[in-house]
């Protein structure tokens, strides 16, 4: 407490101390794993309080229920590392699959009635996500509108468009191919989980070992410097917005398979959870900081919490409060472990 206020008082030290350098380097590595202890603790706790928690079936269903969140959190994390923001991801989760479904469904089932083959439908879904991302990118990167507020507006617009084009209808009766990701399994684990895992692995690898990944960190850290280093700032940012949009669409598809229908408010309010997961996982909202490992642990943490709350049959009225409380605590944990002011 006192040292914190002292830290707040004094301007950042000019001292070049190798010790401090080494220490923070270690802390950084530590920070990205900051949550692992918390996660482990929770799992152990869960195992104690409830004997079904550690059953294979249950662990698998935790993964299955987290897959969609994982994909969208991945999208949000990439954009955040680039120093930008995209709130409209939650609406993309809804509208992209809706579009994909409506080009496939007959008019009788609330579709457009053009009844394209479902493969085309899935393609259109991905493209829709990418296009939405591109629009956001254009508004933020080229027109330099404030990312937070412009994507907030987009969130409202897209949700509105979905309600408008479906006339508020929930879409049922999609072809099986819209559900396979969530329904069919490999080694007992849903494909959606494998997909999310693969996406995280690839993203993590590119961020660490490819120039584009490093460029993203550079841009998030100091765009002007990145420019002078010859990084095509605008292009990279556009790219990450587009990828983000596509990932959100994919997340939407996973969600569709998981619930077996597309309601007009699919994904509504999801962005809160997404940002919570990302930041708890150590992704910085100021850009340039954070790892995929961290983001993933963030997602899993929230998934485990949700699962435990249901298993424990907590009084339903209090579930929300407890859930929020746990998020708050985890934030403090990652603040304390990371040792320095959060951003």
């Amino acid at each position, binding site marked *: 407490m006192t040292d914190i206020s002292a830290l707040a008082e004094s301007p950042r030290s000019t001292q070049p101390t190798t010790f401090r350098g080494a220490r923070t380097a270690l802390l950084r590595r530590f920070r990205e794993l900051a949550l692992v202890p918390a996660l482990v603790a929770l799992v152990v706790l869960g195992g104690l309080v409830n004997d*079904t928690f550690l059953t294979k079936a249950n662990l698998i269903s935790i993964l299955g*229920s987290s897959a969609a969140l994982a994909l969208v959190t991945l999208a949000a994390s990439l954009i955040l590392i680039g120093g930008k923001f995209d709130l409209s991801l939650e609406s993309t989760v809804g509208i992209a699959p809706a579009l994909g479904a409506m080009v496939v469904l007959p008019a009788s089932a609330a579709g457009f009635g053009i009844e394209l083959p479902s493969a085309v439908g899935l393609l259109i879904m991905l493209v829709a996500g990418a296009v939405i991302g591109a629009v956001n990118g254009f508004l933020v990167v080229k027109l330099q509108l404030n990312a937070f507020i412009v994507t907030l507006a987009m969130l409202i617009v897209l949700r509105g468009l979905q309600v408008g084009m479906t006339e508020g*209808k*929930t879409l049922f009766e999609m072809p099986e191919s819209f559900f396979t990701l969530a329904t069919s399994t490999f080694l007992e684990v849903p494909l959606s989980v494998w997909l999310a895992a693969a996406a995280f692995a690839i993203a993590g690898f590119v961020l660490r070992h490819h120039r584009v990944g490093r460029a993203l960190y550079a841009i998030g850290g100091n765009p002007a410097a990145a420019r002078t280093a010859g990084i095509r700032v605008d292009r990279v940012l556009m790219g990450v917005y587009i990828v983000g949009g596509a990932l959100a669409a994919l997340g939407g598809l996973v969600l569709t398979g998981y*619930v077996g229908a597309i309601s007009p408010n*699919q994904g509504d309010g999801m962005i809160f959870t997404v940002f919570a997961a990302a930041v708890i996982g150590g992704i910085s909202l100021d850009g340039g900081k954070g790892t995929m490992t961290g983001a993933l642990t963030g997602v899993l943490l929230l998934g485990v919490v949700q699962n435990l709350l*249901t298993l424990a049959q907590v009084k*339903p009225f209090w579930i929300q409060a407890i859930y929020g409380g746990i998020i708050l605590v985890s934030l403090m944990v990652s603040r304390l472990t990371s040792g320095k002011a959060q951003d």
Partner: protein
Amino acid sequence: GSTGDSKGNTATGDGKAGKTGVVLPFLTSPFWQAYNGYVPAKAKELGVSTLPTVNSNSDAAQQITDINNLLNQGVKGLVVAPIDSAAIAAGLDQAERKGVPVVAVDVAPDRGKVAMIVRADNRAYGTLACKYMGDKVKTGKVVQIMGDLSSINGRDRSEAFRDCMKQNYPSIQVLEIPTEWKAERAAAGLNTILNANPDLKGVYMQAGGVFLAPTLQQLKAKGLLHPVGDPKHITVVSNDGIPQELDAIRRGDIDATVSQPADDYAKYGLYYIKAAMEGKTFEPGPTDHNSTIIQHPDGNLEDQLAAPLVTKENVDDPTLWGNSLGR
């Protein structure tokens, strides 16, 4: 009251009687979406001239604003489906001050004067479902997939179901999944519950429109989706009566649903507002559309529309809105 006397003056009726405003709570559930579809048709039928429906987007304050706006436009009658039984009071006061009659649909206001309440009681749904479920399951665990605990209908259905179970079927244990009307929360919750309780006997979902798909999806995923009659079958009772639920009943995926009459909601909402605008009044007692009008302590009248329980037996009844709805 009976529809008989209204027939005469429909012709003149919409001439002098002014416009009617119709306010929806939200549009994102198949049920209200259907209701919204019925309004213009029924209005034509009854010769009521309505403004386009207004959607309050499940925001109570927005609903008050919408009512104000309609009143400012000089509507002579309002058909409102309140988002909340209490958080509608201010709107009703406004209307009363302007001398504009209001018919409340689906939710009975806790406070304020209305010409008529048109609904099938949410508590009744819960009890109905409980009775059916109880008789089928007798003993063991059942789960209720709850709506948003901060929404009146979610709350009423949950309480009614819980209480009825406690009283009538003490040997049945009720598990609960709060979902805030979110399909993915329902899916995750049910999935988890099934892990912990493979011996689950029954599922009550408070809104088929939202929960039907996720429930079937999860049962399928867990290989627990056996047709009705199969000893391994898990009893599923739903609510709303949308077409997809009826199909599920035909397929034998689910046992029953409470058909919440979207068409009658629209029809009688408009019917009573028309009557009120013409200064007609009604007494408690049976109506001509096999429902009864009862009087609330605060003097408001309520036409308790029948909300039939749909099972394999009556699933093809053409009068069910889920069957009559153009698909």
